[in-house]
């Protein structure tokens, strides 16, 4: 909503955003154009007018002497790409909308971003999909991923489960914001036991209003992978490099957003991607062994998440009170992201001892991102072990958090240590293969 002097001006001359108007300035100049919605950081004294040459200009309200309406909000229909009818002979892929940049569309008049989630709109953007799969779409929710909670993971997992149970569905694609995409991927990985078909989570780093957006190729590749790949895994499909053309399929429990803005922000940690979709239309398989797609396998849903596990990053001078509060709040588990091999400063020893004593499970991961914890190497580690801290091998700290919530939601609390150390979905890998190159990327 417009506030301040500008809203009074609109009222005075009975005009609104979107209207085509003629504006007479105090110095006698006359401008014509369309009144535009205001950017959040636009000064409240400024009226924004879109000139006929397309430019937006900002005019201080005090310089305006008169506004005359020419036309109420003209309707500008976006043009559409030619479409071919969908073929029922192709594999059926269900595309579920959760939110994020991936399918946002810009209103080119205002610059406002909104979600496009109907199958028709999807095909407007990606007409070539009709040659790949028969698409069905459904919106579960429409949230930026930073707003998602464990409760949303339950909804997403349940919907994916429901769609996978359909005989006519070959795979499911989930459109998701990238910020917490890794967490949701881990959550769905744990929630769907005995998975029968591919589940692909996909996002984009550049919004789809740009001709250069990565949304289209990420999504087409995701649909391709859902329809045709032999992987019965939960995966994340995102650019494998800055260039277009190669989309990596990361295993859902070992994937991390490692860059704030690059297209290839997502990386598989201490493991290779299962494969790559090349040029939207072919699959290059990397893994030797994987769970093969099998429509007859009976997928089970273990889809509860109890957010009584917390993740704490150790840092020099961290106050012990952070943990004390968690204990007071009856948290069941604390995952520590320790330094190096899995360490914390000795000034935390007491609070950790106290937490464990009062029945909170304390797990150790590493904040190094790559590599494995080992609490035998140094005194600090041995001390932590003897207190009862449980190291989680090379499990990503985010995945450890999600897994703890999942275990607490679906199993008895006493089983937590056992479940955390059981490898379900490659969240623990026991070999650390040597990899050349930067980023410790295999």
């Amino acid at each position: 909503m417009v506030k301040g002097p500008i809203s009074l001006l609109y009222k005075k001359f009975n005009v609104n955003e979107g209207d085509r108007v003629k504006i007479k300035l105090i110095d006698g100049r006359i401008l014509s154009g369309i009144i535009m919605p205001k950017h959040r950081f636009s000064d409240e004294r400024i009226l924004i007018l879109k000139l006929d040459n397309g430019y937006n200009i900002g005019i201080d309200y005090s310089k305006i002497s008169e506004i005359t309406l020419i036309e109420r909000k003209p309707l500008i229909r976006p043009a559409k790409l030619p479409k071919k009818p969908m073929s029922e002979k192709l594999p059926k892929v269900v595309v579920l909308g959760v939110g994020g940049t991936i399918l946002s569309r810009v209103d080119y008049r205002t610059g406002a971003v909104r979600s496009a989630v109907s199958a028709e709109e999807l095909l407007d953007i990606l007409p070539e999909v009709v040659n790949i799969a028969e698409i069905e779409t459904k919106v579960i929710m429409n949230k930026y991923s930073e707003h998602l909670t464990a409760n949303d993971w339950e909804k997403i997992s349940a919907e994916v489960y429901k769609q996978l149970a359909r005989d006519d569905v070959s795979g499911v694609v989930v459109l998701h914001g990238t910020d917490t995409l890794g967490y949701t991927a881990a959550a769905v990985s744990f929630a769907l036991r005995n998975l029968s078909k591919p589940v692909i989570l996909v996002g984009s780093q550049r919004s789809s209003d740009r001709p250069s957006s990565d949304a289209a190729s990420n999504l087409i590749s995701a649909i391709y992978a859902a329809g045709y790949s032999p992987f019965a895994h939960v995966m994340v499909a995102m650019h494998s490099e800055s260039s277009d053309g190669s989309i990596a399929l990361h295993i859902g429990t070992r994937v991390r957003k490692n860059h704030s803005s690059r297209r290839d922000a997502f990386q598989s940690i201490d493991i290779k991607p299962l494969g790559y979709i090349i040029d939207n239309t072919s699959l290059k398989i990397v893994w030797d062994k994987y769970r093969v797609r099998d429509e007859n396998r009976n997928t089970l849903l273990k889809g509860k998440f109890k957010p009584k596990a917390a993740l704490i990053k150790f840092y020099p001078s961290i106050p012990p009170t952070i943990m004390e509060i968690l204990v007071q709040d009856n948290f069941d588990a604390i995952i520590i992201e320790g330094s190096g091999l899995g360490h914390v400063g000795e000034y935390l020893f007491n609070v950790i001892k106290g937490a464990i004593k009062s029945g909170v499970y304390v797990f150790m991961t590493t904040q190094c991102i790559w590599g494995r914890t080992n609490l035998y190497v140094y005194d600090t580690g041995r001390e932590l072990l003897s207190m009862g801290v449980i190291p989680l091998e090379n499990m990503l700290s985010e995945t450890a958090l999600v897994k703890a919530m999942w275990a607490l939601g679906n199993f008895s609390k006493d089983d937590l240590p056992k479940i955390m150390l059981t490898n379900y979905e490659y969240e623990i890998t026991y070999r650390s293969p040597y990899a050349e190159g930067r980023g410790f990327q295999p």
Partner: protein
Amino acid sequence: MSKEEEIKIGLEIHFQLNTKRKLFCHCPVGLAEPKGAKVIRRLRPTQSELGQIDPAAYFEFQKGVTIEYIAPQEYTCLVELDEEPPHKLCEEALHVAIAVAKYLNCKLLDEFEVMRKVVIDGSNPTGFQRTLVIATDGHIKVDGKPIKIQTICLEEEAARLIEKRGNVVVYALDRLGIPLIEIATGPDINSADEAVKVAEYLGRIVSATGMRRRGIGTIRQDINISVRGGNVVEIKGVQKLQQLKRVIEFEYARHKSLLKIKDELSKRGVKKEDLRVEYVDVSNIFLNTKSKLISKLLKAGNIVVAVRLKGFSGLLGMETAPGYRLGKEISERVRFWTGLGGIIHSDELPGYGISIEEVNQVRNVLQCNEKDAFVLIISSKDKVDIAVEKVIERAREALDGVPTETRGAKDDGTTFYMRPRPGMARMYPETDIPPIRLTNEILTEANKYKIIPPDEIIKSLIKLYGINEELAWKLYDSGMIGLFKELAKGLKRIKPSYVASTLTELLKYIEREGFDISKLSDDIIIKTIRYVDNGVIEKEVIPDIWVRVIRGEGDLDSIVKRFAEERVKPEQIINYINQLIHSENIRSLPDEIKKKRLIGIVMSKYRGKVDPKFVIETVNKVLEGENIG
């Protein structure tokens, strides 16, 4: 009606600014060898473009086009690669633009809104160019004539096209994001000469801020041109003033001819509905053709279709501008949308090995009478529909005279179809950058750029340094005044006018010879001139020295040392003169001629290795001595 009354020209001139950083990131401004990381991208059509242009054709056009970006490390970061959101606007550029706008009597906006202008050719990895209006409604007088200034914008420069090979377009990203100040004039210019004067005038004002970048390609002008009765056509990418003149002449001729064609079509009673998007597959007629072009393409699996253009006979082949025809406009249009080359029209037939019999058969099939023309399209099946549509589209536009479109300028001053002219939906807000409120602080900073009227600067140069006006303007236009003033301080042996012509004419000459004068830093130029002024070397060797520096044959000091060592010692000159003076053919000459001849002989032997003044003095002395003796 005179040509001047008929023609209306507006200029959109872009000047690169030499700011400390690029417009929307912190990379320095500069160009490098096109080497570095390579990133491959494909652009997809988006809604906003489709609002403006034929979606079917556009999609076809973009399918399969791959763009390769080269990112020279020194001048590019993730922002150019569209891998990081833009940084805040470079304030220095804003200050310069405001200073220029105020000088040109423009009205500043109260808040600047950054826009995205969609570009479809890959020259921006984002798919759009960021641009913002700074001011509007200015006015200037050039040679007494009032010219309106419509807008002053700041824009990011596009990437540098390196090459096109097949479906791959290669760009270097170093140039992308250099701040451009764009000045758009009203359509108040009526001749090529006037356009050149206005362009020169505006260039000099931007130069006066001291922030204009020098060198080839640092200025580009787009021209909006219309001829009474026709529409406005936008011509892109004119780099030289000479080319500007030729483009305007070419377009004037083209517009006039197209208007004539319009009248002729109207006389012939041709209507839009007579031009139908219909075609006949005439491949059969050409099964045994002698035309190598057609038979080759047919063998490759193409078909030949024919489209009738009712009432167009003779008009497709009529020359509209030197070497240019309506027929060519049609084939350019088809080629842009489909990439097809095999477009032939009936005004050029029989030809291309196509016989009169084949022509007549096509005419029969299409039921053409003698007033009708036809177009043959040789194409794969999937492109035929779009190609035919484009042929009819352009033919229909001929009924209205001059189509509104964007054209490109070639070096020789001819123009070609580039794309449809984009409209307002091509622009939408850049939401990643907050609007910028015009504040007193910004105005104070902008006021620090004092723009002194160029002619005042010229007057003072003439007065202070005794150089002539032409040379003074040359200094001004080459952006060398600062350097000149620096060099002119405390000159001993050489004159300011010599320095001025070295900075302008000599450098230009070296550049024309194909040497990259950007390798001659101000420092090198200053040092060289000082060496000459101190008598270490003679001025005749400057070009030689600079060429060697450019070629990388060593640093300036060592090259100068080599030349200095070649210098001749005074005793050698005295000995040589003494020797000459006693020779048979000198001795017999009268004194006046003797002197001239002696100087001539010595100079031709030792040019560049000795100061001519010394030679003259020595000759005088020796001759005097002889006379005394």
